């Protein structure tokens, strides 16, 4: 396959135009739509931050984490509790970012010393600890009932309804965080992460401090999880132990894969998938919702292994070809380009000892080469 990679996939002008139009629509939208729809879009923005954090860790650094929900939950509870104690919003936000980031860094210390999926194993245990903890500490967390908190009301000077205010605040903060994440993985850092994802052995011999990178990325991903938790509570004003749940962690990972790994747009698509698809599925048949949900997931993975963002990129890249095909005949099924295939766990397994696999090709047998 002759896949050209560096070529800008979507021209610069088209990108800018798309962003400007999207911004204009997003600014006008809450004036026109219902509070329910506003809340849904606000939730997409909040979850996009959580998933963007996971994307840094899983997409770029190749570390699978099933515990992103735990960091989301820590951020959400931090926000709810500090708001109840009358903290300024900015301080709540700072703590909702820093506390999970610190917990993430502490968890990462033992995990980064081990290669492979040690991190995934450790992150599985996080929700198992966090959920009972949230239920037990009911003086602080409200126990199984959860916690309702006074945050995110529109100030009178704004002249906005609460849902509109939360919409603007959450979308602005989320956009800033997504932009930061987008910039953070460009250039040198992005290349270092790619090589870590490909092979830690190759990365370390290239001079990349692998452990430090993994720790920083894990802390950052956790901080993003917490910031997403803040944004969630800012618009929902409620948190309960379900927010920490293990299943949530898995659903987030699935959404990320569906949206597209290693793509900022993919994180937003993933958040849309996470927020809207269960609703849609529930509308069709609430009894079979998890079945339909699973089927959707399977279909995306089968027909767009690079996720929706990856498939869209592939379509754009081959748009001329597709247009010609459409014009002449029945459109051929669109297979996504091969190198964009989702990075599974297979690619890192091969070279962990720097080429010490005992199997050898007969061609390099020394006896056959000596004259």
């Amino acid at each position, binding site marked *: 396959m002759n896949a050209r990679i560096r070529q800008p996939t979507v021209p610069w002008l088209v990108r800018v135009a798309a962003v400007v139009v999207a911004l204009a629509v997003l600014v006008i939208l809450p004036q026109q739509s219902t509070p329910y729809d506003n809340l849904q879009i606000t939730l997409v923005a909040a979850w996009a931050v959580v998933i963007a954090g996971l994307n840094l860790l899983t997409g770029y650094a190749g570390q699978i984490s099933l515990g992103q929900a735990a960091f989301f939950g820590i951020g959400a509870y931090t926000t709810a509790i500090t708001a109840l104690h009358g903290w300024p919003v900015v301080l709540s936000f700072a703590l909702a970012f820093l506390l999970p980031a610190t917990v993430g860094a502490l968890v990462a210390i033992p995990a980064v010393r081990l290669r492979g999926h040690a991190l995934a194993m450790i992150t599985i245990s996080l929700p198992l600890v966090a959920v009972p903890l949230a239920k037990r500490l009911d003086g602080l967390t409200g126990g199984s009932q959860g916690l309702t908190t006074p945050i995110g009301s529109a100030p009178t000077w704004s002249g906005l309804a609460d849902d509109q205010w939360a919409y603007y605040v959450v979308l602005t903060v989320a956009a800033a965080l997504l932009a930061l994440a987008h910039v953070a993985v460009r250039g040198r850092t992005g290349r270092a992460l*790619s090589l870590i*994802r490909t092979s830690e052995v190759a990365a370390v011999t290239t001079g990349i401090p692998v452990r430090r990178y993994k720790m920083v990325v894990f802390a950052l991903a956790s901080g993003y999880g917490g910031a997403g938790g803040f944004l969630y509570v800012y618009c929902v004003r409620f948190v309960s132990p379900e927010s920490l749940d293990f299943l949530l962690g898995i659903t987030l990972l699935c959404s990320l894969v569906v949206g597209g790994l290693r793509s900022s747009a993919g994180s937003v698509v993933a958040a849309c998938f996470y927020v809207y698809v269960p609703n849609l599925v529930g509308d069709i048949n609430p009894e079979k919702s998890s079945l339909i949900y699973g089927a959707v997931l399977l279909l995306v993975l089968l027909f767009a292994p690079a996720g929706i963002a990856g498939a869209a990129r592939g379509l754009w890249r081959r748009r001329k070809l597709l247009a010609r095909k459409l014009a002449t005949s029945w459109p051929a099924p669109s297979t996504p380009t091969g190198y964009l295939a989702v990075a599974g766990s297979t690619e890192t397994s091969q070279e962990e000892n720097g080429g010490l696999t005992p199997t050898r090709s007969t061609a390099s047998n020394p006896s056959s080469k000596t004259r």
Partner: protein
Amino acid sequence: MVLPALSVPADAQPPPRPELLAVRGVSLRFGGLAVLSTVDLTVRAGEIHGLVGPNGAGKTSLFNCISGLYRPQAGSINLDGADLLRCPPHRLAGLGLARTFQHPILDQHTSVLENVLTGTYTCQDSAAVGRVFHPRSALREKDRRRQKARALLAYSGLIDVEDQSPGTLPHAEQKRVELVRALLAEPKLLLLDEPAGGLVHSEVDELGELIRRIRDDHGVTVLLVEHHMGLISSITDHVHVLAEGRNVTAGTAAEVQRHPAVIESYLGSAP
């Protein structure tokens, strides 16, 4: 110092070039398995040095010790005066060590150019602080690196495929991509693990030519593991023979090929 099992012919003349890499008495065991036993190896600056030996001799293991991936239980490894065994592995690239792997390790999700640019990782430390204060000079630095990467890709005949995914390239070209990535780290010593492995005849000749040019044009010292004796004979200044984790002999390619132990292990065991 422990003498090697089979003595290495002593050099009568004063050393023509300074020692760049000095491996002394390195022993490595995995549980009960002695992979390396008191291995000595000296590579002089500006040399192309061959490391040969039968399968399982411990050549890759020695490379892994030099590049900090394995910690030998005994011995010392010095590069240009720096004690490598005291450095964390990720520091070695900064000390002037780069390597390729027996099987190329490349990221299939990015282009050839992006892959080789990873090699410049350690060259950028100086710019890191200045970047905030001098964004323009940082940009120029970035351009310069990109140009250098493209120049080296052109030099190794890869410029036409710079935008492609490495997975789409033939094996020989993937190996060259790894070579360019290693070179971009501006190493003093380049370790090549079976660069000719899996290459057809004409490709081996080209590769030999490329390695020689790299040494001549970039002043890089090369230590290469290779089974291809034709390549070893044509480009190395010095060859070190290892068998079952022990020093066997050392000398020029012609000298070691006359050594009885080499003749035995290479020809005597031939089917």
